[in-house]
């Protein structure tokens, strides 16, 4: 394993080093350096400290593990690979993510999974251990977003306006969602055994990464949200 001491280094320098080694890497004392692992396909990076915005942007394989919190735009336009965050994350995680997986132990900010897509054999997955901010899954066009709402102390599992513009994919919320208002163009139903089957491997990995009780998680009630149409705005326009 190669160790990169991040203190005082720019993100350009850090990424240069990562590119040179392209193997197992430990970054220590990270504090705000952006774009770590951007566009990379074959690295295994562990990060101590707080990585900056756009961690793993355009990630195309490999794995990034963060032992503390991460900031905004984690996994922006990610195509493959995995990002594991032991703390909380900021806004717009998994923006336009097309493949790969993001696991977060804590809470997520606004607009998690916005523009998330699926394509052929690519199925992006985001698992949030805590709660999610507003506009969760905005314009979601594919993939799976799972929010577990663990340790939420009575807080709503997701804030306002989830699934705005959703036209593909699935959203799983570990809640009966009585207190969540969904837009008209989506349907929410209680998860069936089949639904749970679909996410079982991701829940299993989540509990492995963060040492959680899988049985306990799976025994809860999940609500599944899916869009009614792939073409939500078809009726809105008239040719002039």
């Amino acid at each position: 394993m190669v160790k990169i001491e991040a203190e005082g280094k720019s993100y350009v320098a850090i990424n240069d080093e990562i590119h040179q080694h392209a193997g197992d890497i430990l970054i220590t004392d990270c504090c705000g350096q952006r774009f770590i692992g951007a566009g990379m396909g074959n690295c295994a990076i562990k990060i101590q400290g707080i990585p900056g915005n756009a961690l793993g942007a355009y990630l195309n394989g490999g794995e990034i593990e963060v032992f503390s919190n991460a900031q905004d735009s984690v996994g922006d336009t990610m195509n493959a690979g995995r990002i594991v965050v032991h703390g909380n994350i900021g806004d717009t995680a998994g923006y336009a993510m097309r493949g790969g997986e993001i696991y977060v132990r804590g809470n997520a900010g606004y607009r998690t999974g916005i523009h998330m897509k699926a394509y052929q054999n690519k199925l992006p997955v985001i698992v949030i251990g805590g709660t999610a901010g507003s506009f969760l899954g905005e314009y979601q066009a594919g993939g799976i977003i799972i929010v577990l709402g663990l340790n939420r102390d009575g807080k709503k599992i997701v804030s306002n306006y989830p699934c705005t513009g959703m036209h593909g994919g699935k959203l799983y919320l570990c809640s009966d969602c009585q207190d969540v208002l969904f837009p008209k163009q989506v349907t929410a139903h209680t998860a069936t055994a089949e639904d749970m089957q679909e996410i079982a491997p991701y829940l299993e990995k989540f509990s492995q990464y963060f040492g959680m009780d899988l049985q306990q998680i799976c025994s809860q009630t999940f609500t599944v949200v899916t869009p009614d149409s792939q073409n939500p705005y078809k009726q809105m326009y008239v040719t002039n």
Partner: protein
Amino acid sequence: MGQDYIYPEFEVVRREDRCIRCGICVKQCANGVHAWDKERKILHIDESKCVNCQRCVCFCPVHALKIVKSEAGFRENANWDNQTMKEVYLQAKTGGVLLSSMGNPKPYPIYWDKLLINASQVTNPPIDPLREPMETRVFLGKKPAAVQRDAEGKICCQLEPQLELAMPVLFSAMSYGSISYNAHASLAQAAKELGIYYNTGEGGLHEDFYAYGANTIVQVASGRFGVYEDYLNAGAAIEIKMGQGAKPGIGGHLPGTKVGADISKTRMIPEGSDAISPAPHHDIYSIEDLRQLVYSLKEATRYRKPVIVKVAAVHNIAAIASGIARSGADIIAIDGFRGGTGAAPTRIRDNVGIPIELALAAVDQRLRDEGIRNQVSLIVGGSIRSSADVVKAVALGADACYVGTAALLALGCHLCRSCQTGKCNWGIATQRQELTERLDPQEGYRRLVNLMTAWKHEIKEMLGGMGINSIEALRGNRLMLRGIGLNQKELEILGVYHAGE
């Protein structure tokens, strides 16, 4: 219901004495204007479906057809014109948002036509471009503020990545989806031959066109369609689309009906799924966020590609451009409010944004006032109609021009402004195979090369007339322009004198 009947806008006139009943018009019209009435053995015309694309007129072997604007209309009214009234009826009937395409057709001032180009007489000689060297090569990209030297005093010649253009023109962003495969094939091949660039638009890059990467600009819009490692590295530059002149503040929306198998592959989304890219990149809510996106792309491509930021020309464009210049972008592309589109809400297209001429003049001056004009290159588009527009744009301060509509015209577009229907009879703005086949990419490519070669000659003629033998000596050379029929404020913004001054 009778209340909704509107007399058609066009009349299709068939000269029966010429018509040979060959049925070509029937085959050519995807809108179903022409039909063969088997029983009556006559060619029937339904002009209500006619968009005046001229396809049947062009292909009638005996020139029996013409399309004329209908004289029938509502009672004349300078305030409530026919179009306005029709739109009210249409919306009353459907409740829909009006959707149009191509550039703003309203009679706003066209400043290109109010600018006149200089020529040399006596005090300094015109140059004969046919026999003397005349250079149109342009490099787009960031230039260093100061020359650096090594220990021996030699200049360090390493520049930030640049785009080299054989002439100051690029084909503007038009996505695969909004236009056809064959249209893209024509543009890509022409760009390669001409030594310029075409732009993928936001629809990803078809695998067949990776071969043209050296002449390709790949676009990243809010929907991030088809954006991944290979795509970012495939082109010569990356363009972040923040806005489009035809619809500032409005995003793109390719309806699922146009997302067939092939388009689904380049966009990397499922077939039949709507491709929505809203106006904001939801990770850019401020100028410093733009910087984040610019540098994330630079990091992902290891600083090998210049990054272009494309914005629509809006009221505050000078300040916006200044912000972009300081965000790390290498090139700013500004799209004027007459720029084309495959589909835009009519109200937005016709009412939002400002003319590119004024935007360009304001931006160029602002960047100079701040001393940062050399840190960034400027591309302008929307709409550049001829080589004279290119020359005027460069003289106002542009490094190069994006050309979209004119390129489509070269491919056969007749500006019927019906792209949003997906039934383009010229095989350009459609994905229907029987229509896309009509555009032969070999012919399309040749016509594009012809057009740009002709423009290049004309640019050289105009340069020579001004006594300039290289395009860079024209850039920002506003003394080469004079305004005609412009008021003091317009002259001030354009930074030109009035003719006679």
